[in-house]
């Protein structure tokens, strides 16, 4: 029961965060900055320094790309809101892009922060059949595996001979990020197959009654 309350509370906080940051105050730059500052501080206190830095490094290119795209829209004078002063179009897109970039980074860090309070034991003790719980167990297990292996995947991509130099070109830098994302997908697909089979096998032997019900 205690675990159920804990998970319910976590889900409630998540929904509240998404509503406040993503809907109610989505265009309030000051509130977005304040919220992301609090989330980053909480993450720094909760996670190991190296993990925090790794995640920040992983997310920064996406934020930079988002900002560049929004600034390009401004430079192209794309004007969906019929802003009259020409200078204000760029300002509008910069402000809009900055809010979205901060919102994106804050949401990613907040999800990680709040979900870190849900342990495997919490999931196992949920009043669900083991057949349904196995998806949650697999998801949690894949999430932990991915977070722990991002650094290692990046090391091996950066050790490819063409990337072993002091200054990478923008194209190479972009390709490293693409290859890292692709390698994460490959890893998750493989691990989900292997871990899924292991979990099914464990259920087959430890929860015979539930398993038979499913079959």
């Amino acid at each position, binding site marked *: 029961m205690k675990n159920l309350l804990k998970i319910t509370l976590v889900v409630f906080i998540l929904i509240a965060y998404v509503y406040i940051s993503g809907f109610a105050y989505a265009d309030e730059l000051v509130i977005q900055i304040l919220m992301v500052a609090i989330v980053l501080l909480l993450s720094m206190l909760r996670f190991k320094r190296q993990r925090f830095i790794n995640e920040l490094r992983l997310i920064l290119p996406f934020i930079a790309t988002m900002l560049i795209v929004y600034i390009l829209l401004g430079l192209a004078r794309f004007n969906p809101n019929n802003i009259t002063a020409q200078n204000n179009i760029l300002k509008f897109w910069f402000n809009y892009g900055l809010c979205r970039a901060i919102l994106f980074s804050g949401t990613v860090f907040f999800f990680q922060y709040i979900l870190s309070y849900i342990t495997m034991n919490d999931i196992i003790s949920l009043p669900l059949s083991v057949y349904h719980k196995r998806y949650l167990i697999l998801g949690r297990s894949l999430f932990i595996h991915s977070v722990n292996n991002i650094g290692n995947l990046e090391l091996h991509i950066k050790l*490819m001979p063409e990337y072993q130099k002091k200054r990478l070109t923008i194209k190479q830098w972009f390709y490293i990020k693409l290859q890292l994302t692709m390698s994460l997908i490959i890893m998750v697909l493989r691990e989900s197959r292997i871990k899924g089979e292991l979990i099914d096998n464990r259920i087959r032997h430890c929860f015979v009654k539930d398993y038979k019900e499913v079959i």
Partner: protein
Amino acid sequence: MIWIIPAQHYLVWETFSLDIKYNLTFETGNVYHLNGNNGSGKTSFIQQVLIPILQKDSEQQYIFYVEQQIQSQFDAITSYALFQKPSTDITSFDDMVLFVLEMLQSTQRNASRPSVIILDECPDSDELQAKLRSLSDESYCLIVVSHKESIYIKDRGVNTISFNTINMGLSEIGHQ
């Protein structure tokens, strides 16, 4: 070419340190065998000390590292290979190491540098061994971690670097 790992106390993990008593030197043309019990810090030395020091001057050499747990490396290199033109399908350990070695040789043609080849409990592969033997000795320095007699250091003059466990949180490294 010579690479020097300075003698000092390295805190590699929060609860584990490596104490290097004397400067460790690695030289092209030489083969080094990292020897020690399980948990004595051989892989930690490679990942947390050796590679970061080499990467500080990344244009001095090429690092070719085959990890002990190759699954992440396999995923990373499979992903890299998919982006090549034409894309290469990596399906086995041999495919993976030979692909990276080919990339290395191709990059060497444009920017020649010595290589540091690190094999951490790498599975025996006749193809990899043949490829290594075909390279000029002076073009690379070979560092091998293995508990049994590895085919990669068989019949070669080997410098042994030993890892001695002092306690659960500390190992000492020195030439044997």
